[in-house]
């Protein structure tokens, strides 16, 4: 495990020399430099990044659950192999991200504890059930597409270790998107039952998808400082717009519709999509653990964690044991 190796030094407002260090830090960022693990950074920057990376890591590991549940049911061998590989990638993303957060001084154990105790958040979309196989296709295509919009942007952010992890993650997400799109094309062009399954999945998933990039810029508390420190380069609404511009036409191309109540219409002059504003109070309630699948997700993560405790303990003991005859990797 990576141990926190930063020396906390006058990194809070009011500390001696803070203003000067902050000015130098902000100048570096404005210049396009990346911040590295051991560099001086404002405490607020560190906290925001830990919060973001932690939420992101949790989302990857919780995101493995709705699709993972469908691995045993994948309808042919090619889909079965692709789905296992996809969910495995998501677990790998969690691993990379926990590592990136550890460079900022928070241990994986702490992060996992906070996740299973319900204290730490994860993406709104994984608080919903994957009810049918078409949900798996929809998630793989559109949720991964939404994630790519977000992560490509975040990958250019100012914190080096997070950006590098995200570049690798985006590379794999692109495969997930292709796999998901291919499943959607197959279902959309398949039998009536398959097409209806997909439409039904899209109807149910559209709300979480519209909420995926987070509260409207009018409501978001975190945006301003994150953009100043170039942790985030686009606002939530900008990301949502980018997603809609790219994917709404593709959804229509497949002969699918988006539920009426969203009043999606294209502004021909600007190319922007207008839509009914999501209910952000509902979004907040969902990410606080009141979504339809929130309790199940936490219960599953907790169960996996508790049932694996003896293994982790045994591995620690075995690692100290020099009689170990075989080692791998």
């Amino acid at each position: 495990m990576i141990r926190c190796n930063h020396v906390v030094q006058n990194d809070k407002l009011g500390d001696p020399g803070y203003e000067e260090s902050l000015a130098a830090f902000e100048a570096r960022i404005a210049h396009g430099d990346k911040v590295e693990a051991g560099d001086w950074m404002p405490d607020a920057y560190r906290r925001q990044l830990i919060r973001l990376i932690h939420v992101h890591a949790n989302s990857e590991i919780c995101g493995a659950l709705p699709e993972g549940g469908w691995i045993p049911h994948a309808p042919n061998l090619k889909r079965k192999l692709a789905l296992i590989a996809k969910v495995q990638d998501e677990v790998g993303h969690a691993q990379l991200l926990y590592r990136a957060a550890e460079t900022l001084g928070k241990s994986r154990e702490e992060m996992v504890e906070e996740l299973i105790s319900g204290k730490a958040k994860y993406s709104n979309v994984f608080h919903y059930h994957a009810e049918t196989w078409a949900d798996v296709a929809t998630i793989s295509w559109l949720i991964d597409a939404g994630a790519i919009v977000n992560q490509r942007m975040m990958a250019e952010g100012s914190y080096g270790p997070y950006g590098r992890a995200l570049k690798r993650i985006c590379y794999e997400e692109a495969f997930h998107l292709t796999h998901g799109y291919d499943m959607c094309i197959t279902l959309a062009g398949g039998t009536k039952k398959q097409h209806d399954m997909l439409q039904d999945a899209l109807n149910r998933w559209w709300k979480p998808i519209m909420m995926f990039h987070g509260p409207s810029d009018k409501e978001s508390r975190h945006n301003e400082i994150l953009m100043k420190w170039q942790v985030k380069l686009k606002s939530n609404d900008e990301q949502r717009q980018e997603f809609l511009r790219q994917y709404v036409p593709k959804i229509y191309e497949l002969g699918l519709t988006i539920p009426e109540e969203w009043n999606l219409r294209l502004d021909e002059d600007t190319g922007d999509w207008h839509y009914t504003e999501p209910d952000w109070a509902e979004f907040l309630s969902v990410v606080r653990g009141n979504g339809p699948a929130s309790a199940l997700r936490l219960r599953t993560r907790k169960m996996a964690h508790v049932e694996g405790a003896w293994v982790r303990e045994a591995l620690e003991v075995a690692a100290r044991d020099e009689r170990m005859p075989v080692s791998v990797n």
Partner: protein
Amino acid sequence: MKKTFASPDSVSGESRDALIDLIYRLADDDLILGHRNSVWTGLAPILEADIAMSSLAQDEIGQAVAYYRLLHDLGEPDPDTLAFTRSAQDYRCASLTLLDRGDWAFSTVRQYFYDVYKTHRLASLSDGTYAPLAQLARKVRGEQKYHMMHSRMWVSRLGDATDESRERMQRSVDTLYGHALGLFEPTPFEQIIADHGFCTTESGLFETWRDEVHSMLDHAGLTIPGDVTPKHGGRRGQHLPELQLLLDEMQQVYRLEPTAQW
């Protein structure tokens, strides 16, 4: 020097039936165990183990597909049809592979028993006389080397680490040993298979398996249960009820629209 069989056309009659039965056993073991192992994806005790288990499941299912292709070349249905439309009695997997995943110790011990079996099976197949199968076996051996190393590492780490790990591992050895013996269930084709040089006999395989497993478990501080009856039946299509449940789960979406593309 035994006669070799270069292609599907070169085997016929009872030797063809024997060869087909042998490949069904190989394919079904891998598919069913791969299916069981894949369920760990996202749920394993540590992220690193999760990723490794998932790779293992993918390798096993991928290898099953390769064996099903050999069967298809021998005139059997295509891989998806074989995996998604057969009924339980048509499967030739051993009971070891189809039991539910249990705890991590159960999956670890099962995997170890299976990997030792598979390692020796592949060694024999690699020298076998049916060229397409020997070729595939040589390729699979490369992957299998890592699986074997990984399995040994887990048994050795968990067998003797804490009281709890030792106790859980021993319980799994006790439960699974009879099922592992079922891997070597004699079949009516055994003599033909050996005579034609497709693969060695089940009893021959068992001896090498037993020697290796016993010395490893001994080393890991685990005991082989005495007087165990082998759990036979799987190689004849007589399965525990778990297989039907597994197939219902596996074929659930497929059955919604069996003639469609998915």
